[in-house]
């Protein structure tokens, strides 16, 4: 296998873009990534695009071809492939691009992610997202996505006695970071009482425990490490790529509040990179709900099971903490355009490793991690990236 590096990154602003289409957004993200790599489109050998549900959100399928066409690649007939794994679509698209280059099959490959979620009514987008869980035996009996994560939270609080305030600190911290990220959907800080007084969605989760509905696109370009300096002075090496699966339905898990797929993907990634959690300077985890960040940092090994609430309350996951988590603002504050999220996580870590993260820069950042979840943990992708 060849070593692989990220040579270019691009991302749209995340938010509710009433005036911008699916096509507008991925073209912008792709153009920014090409510009960043000082690369022209003729050099691109293949594309992978993460997208969960364009069929439901904009009634468009065949997204690989559409993206190739509108980014000017159709006349060169390069392969363009859509990758779908619900909210982990972007992470898997990145992994497929890395594997394509590592194998020697392709040289310069784009990994993108895009989701246009605001062209349908909120009820329709909520229902489309329920397709990430088990439609027959969760969705049809009345489960919503917040409802499933709320059941994880109930189980977790029952077992480990985390306080509601500790859980709320996840959202407070992520909004603090989002306020320092120019692409974030929400760029304002919030207080504990904002979370505690927000509308109850599914007990114990309130509105500010939930990531929003977002439009956005992100793209990164990968190449063989030994060619990376043709394109950039700061190549970022892909130290590990890992993916794991678990049951589609939450009720079939070994333990409701441990994501075994996160544990498996995390362990595989650390083994592949020959690193431990102590080597990681910052991590982007999949905080679709506040409780998801709590479980993720434990299941990846950054703190012991049952202690993430206090760990968060003590500031250990904040910008100056032991392991800064979600410096981008996470899904909560940066926004969650489902298929784009996994690519945006890579975008954030690359910015940190290049020293380009502005007001949220982690000093001396050398190694970073991304963690992207599909559904309630049925698919997980973990990547480790490092400065060369």
């Amino acid at each position, binding site marked *: 296998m060849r070593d692989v590096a990220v040579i270019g990154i691009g991302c749209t602003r995340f938010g509710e873009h009433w005036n911008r289409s699916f096509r507008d957004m991925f073209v912008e993200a792709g153009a920014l990534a090409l510009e960043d790599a000082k690369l022209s489109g003729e050099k691109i050998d293949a594309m992978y695009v993460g997208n969960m549900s364009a069929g439901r959100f904009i009634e468009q399928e065949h997204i690989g071809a559409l993206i190739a066409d509108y980014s000017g690649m159709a006349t060169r007939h390069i392969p363009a492939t859509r990758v779908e794994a619900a909210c982990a679509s972007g992470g898997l698209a990145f992994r497929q691009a890395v594997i394509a280059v590592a194998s020697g099959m392709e040289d310069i490959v784009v990994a993108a992610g895009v989701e246009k979620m605001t062209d349908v009514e909120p*009820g329709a987008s*909520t*229902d489309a997202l*329920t397709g990430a869980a*088990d439609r*027959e*035996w*969760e969705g*049809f*009996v*009345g*489960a*919503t996505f*917040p*409802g499933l994560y*709320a*059941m*994880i*939270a*109930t*189980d977790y609080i*029952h077992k480990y006695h985390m306080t509601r305030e500790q859980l709320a600190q996840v959202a407070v911290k992520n909004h603090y970071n989002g306020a320092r990220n120019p692409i974030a959907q929400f760029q304002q800080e919030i207080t504990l009482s904002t979370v505690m007084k927000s*509308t*109850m*969605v*599914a*007990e*114990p*989760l309130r509105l500010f425990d939930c990531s929003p509905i977002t439009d956005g696109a992100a793209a990164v370009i990968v190449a063989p490490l030994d060619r990376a300096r043709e394109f950039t002075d700061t190549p970022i090496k892909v130290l590990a790529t890992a993916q794991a699966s678990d049951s589609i*339905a*939450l*009720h*079939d898990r070994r333990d*409701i509040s441990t994501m075994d797929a996160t544990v498996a993907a995390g362990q595989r990634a650390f083994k592949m990179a020959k690193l431990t959690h102590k080597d990681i300077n910052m991590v982007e985890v999949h905080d679709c709900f506040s409780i998801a960040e709590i479980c993720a940092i434990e299941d990846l090994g950054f703190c012991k099971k049952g202690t993430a609430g206090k760990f968060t309350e003590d500031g250990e996951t904040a910008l100056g903490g032991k392991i800064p988590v979600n410096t981008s603002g996470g899904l909560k504050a940066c926004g969650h355009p489902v298929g784009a999220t996994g690519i945006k996580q890579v975008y954030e870590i690359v910015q940190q490793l290049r020293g380009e993260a502005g007001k949220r820069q982690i000093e001396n950042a050398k190694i970073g991690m991304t963690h992207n979840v599909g559904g309630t943990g049925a698919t997980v992708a973990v990547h480790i990236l490092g400065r060369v």
Partner: protein
Amino acid sequence: MTVARFWRKIPQRYNLIGTKCTTCGRHFFPPRTFCPDCRRNGKIVDHQFAGFGTIVTYTVIQTEPDHFASPGPYVLAIIKLDEGPQMTTQIICDPKEAKIGMRVRSVFRKIGTDGESGIIHYGTKFVPVE
């Protein structure tokens, strides 16, 4: 949900009929036609569940999705059936009453209506055991 998609699973949804692997004795609800433990050596037969279980975890859903019959907040839970498997279901009770470890039994209730066709769907919910 189309009529055929719902009708296909009526015995399972109405009567809590799942499956069982006679090779290892493991029960499945929701039903599976392939035993993940025995794989090709598993032999799967239908199994009528007794309809008793215990709440593993739950939530009270405040904002209900379209097409569901429950007015206002409703209790959604994962329950462990006495035969072993876990399933997701609604619990018909005062939301304040629900708690982890509560014993429940199955009942036949309206689940929801199809938004476009107006067809009413029935299925299994659970109530606290008196």
